[in-house]
């Protein structure tokens, strides 16, 4: 029987299989950030251990950083301590840091791929659930807890049990105005927020193949939102073209060897998955969420479902201030956030800019555009996107996680609606009491201009 992509990579990284169904898996790339690493570094200090392979770990500061005046010291004391602690730990343990002020700083899941540090066939971990993003490159990438961050520091390995495999195939042509974010919101709405738990997902089919690397990253990014351990896409020419020439990509003879190997990184035709789903691209509409978990998504022109609300769902609607059966089209919103590791890459900003060019944001809406990295920021500037955003009355910030998580200074006020290109609509995720509506960059751009939820298909 043929092998799945998952099995190929997993098997190539088993250091040892032990009794009790666990494997010791070697980790090729370890990304860290300021929030989930300090206790892991402390663990090393307690045991008097070094970082075993410091050159396989890359650090950045992203969650806690302000997105205004990054050249000044961080005002909020605890955030500043955490970022300073990261700097100190990286220095003491010999880990390379793309910290605040570095010309390549950015959200960890944005900078890894753009620097070519994420490459096909790798095992990649980070103390962050959206590590699944890197699966777009045909990697085995997943989020871990802080104890495991310490394990990787100390041994470059993890003790893991093999998840089950799931394939989600999407075939067909997407409607105008429908993109990668809509695909993944649609999948999650169908499978629910727990539908992928226990599984590692492979995204397949001609619709997925037709996506750019940025689009594939958006899809893989949100694998965790259906509970999956991770998600990935087999390697093809799109993958290889993206990696070629990146700063850390192999060069010369190594490049040729790498490409030969990478071209084997897809599931064999006769590979068997533990679970399979197939969706038709034409059925996917622009999607939005109406509740407080990412599985609570609907086609933008559908009403909020009313069948059999349980207590959790009712609590969720109450929090959002929505009613069952209500349509969200025409719903007034107060904020638009374009950013996060899901949708803050250059392609996302280009898409938004193309739509808002020559238009003005609605008066009552505040709009924040937060590039995912310094590199994205520089490209946006060079391409003249900033002028378009400014002319439309949208505010451009400096790179970071920003209003994705209500940890740094960027927060949405209580009770107000934010159409957000991020990945989580949990209660309070964007600030205490904030009401998050997840959507694609295009749907968010339309909300910015019209000040309400609109169907992008009628606007382009």
């Amino acid at each position, binding site marked *: 029987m043929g092998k799945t992509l998952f099995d190929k990579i997993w098997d190539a990284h088993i250091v040892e299989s032990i009794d009790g169904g666990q494997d010791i898996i070697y980790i090729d790339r370890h990304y860290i950030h300021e929030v989930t690493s300090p206790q892991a570094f402390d663990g090393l200090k307690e045991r008097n251990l070094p970082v075993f392979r410091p050159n396989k770990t890359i650090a950045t500061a992203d969650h806690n950083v302000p997105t205004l005046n990054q050249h000044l010291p961080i005002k909020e004391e605890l955030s500043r301590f955490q970022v300073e602690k990261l700097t100190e730990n990286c220095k003491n343990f010999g880990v390379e840091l793309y910290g605040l002020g570095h010309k390549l700083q950015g959200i960890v899941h944005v900078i890894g791929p753009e620097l070519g540090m994420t490459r096909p066939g790798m095992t990649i971990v980070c103390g962050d659930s959206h590590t699944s993003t890197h699966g777009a490159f045909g990697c085995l990438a997943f989020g871990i807890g802080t104890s495991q961050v310490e394990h990787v520091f100390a041994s*470059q390995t993890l003790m893991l049990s093999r998840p089950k495999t799931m394939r989600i195939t999407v075939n067909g042509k997407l409607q105008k105005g429908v993109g990668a974010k809509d695909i993944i919101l649609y999948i999650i709405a169908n499978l629910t927020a727990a539908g992928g738990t226990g599984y590692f997902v492979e995204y397949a089919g001609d619709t997925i193949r037709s996506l750019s690397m940025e689009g594939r990253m958006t899809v893989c990014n949100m694998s965790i939102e259906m509970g999956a351990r991770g998600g990935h896409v087999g390697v093809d020419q799109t993958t290889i073209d993206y990696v070629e020439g990146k700063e850390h990509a192999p060069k010369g003879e190594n490049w040729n060897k790498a490409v030969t190997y990478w071209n084997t990184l897809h599931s064999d035709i006769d590979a068997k998955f533990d679970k399979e789903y197939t969706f038709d691209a034409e059925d996917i509409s622009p999607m939005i969420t109406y509740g407080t978990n990412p599985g609570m998504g609907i086609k933008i022109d559908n009403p909020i479902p009313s069948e059999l609300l349980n207590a959790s769902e009712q609590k969720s609607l109450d929090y959002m201030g929505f009613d069952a059966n209500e349509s969200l089209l025409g719903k007034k919103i107060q904020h638009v956030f374009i950013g996060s590791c899901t949708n803050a890459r250059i392609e996302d900003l280009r898409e938004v800019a193309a739509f808002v060019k020559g238009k003005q944001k609605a008066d009552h809406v505040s709009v924040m555009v937060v590039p995912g990295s310094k590199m994205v920021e520089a490209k946006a500037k060079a391409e003249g996107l900033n002028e378009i955003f400014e002319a439309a009355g949208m505010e451009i910030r400096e790179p970071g996680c920003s209003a994705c998580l209500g940890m740094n200074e960027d927060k949405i006020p209580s009770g107000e609606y934010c159409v957000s290109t991020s990945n989580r609509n949990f209660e309070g995720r964007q600030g205490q009491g904030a009401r998050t509506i997840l959507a694609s960059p295009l749907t968010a751009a339309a909300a910015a201009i019209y000040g309400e939820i609109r169907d992008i298909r009628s606007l382009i």
Partner: protein
Amino acid sequence: MKIEKINILNTTAVPLPMEDIDTDQIIPARFLKALTKEGFGDNLFRDWRYDRNDQTIENFVLNNSKYAGQILVAGKNFGCGSSREHAAWALNDYGFKAVISSFFADIFKGNALNNGLLPIQVNTDDLNFIFTKIEENNNTKLSINLEDQTLSIGEWQRSFDINPYKKMCLLNGYSDLDFLLSKREKIEEFETKQLIY
């Protein structure tokens, strides 16, 4: 960190029958700025326990003096969302030693096991049974025996699954790290053979 050994629990439980409780609710992001693992218990379920003016929300179960104990019983898909291990630290720090649900998110489950917090998965009927028992009598005692892998309330008893390796770790207070460090030679040997680009 030293992991506390666990084997037998015999305690009342706190019922929280909500589904899809994510780690942002267990411990909101604004409390993740600490540099140590201690003290997160005060902010466990912060925004469900206290309102924006820091006033106690009386009808939330942790504020209801009727309910206490070392076990939290919660609805399905507990611990979904962010990978923050702070969620497990907060539950531990508050005094919970086990969480019972019909379904756990993967990363949370791993984090819990790495911190000596026992995640026990039961089927939906059994979960409802436990909720009903606690509702009928808030002094209902639940017993967990890790060695035997059993959960019981009086005569009622169920066995639960746990990875044998993890069970061994919990019973002895071992962490993965002790094991991984002992494999150094194997790891170095693997590195010499590995093809990576």
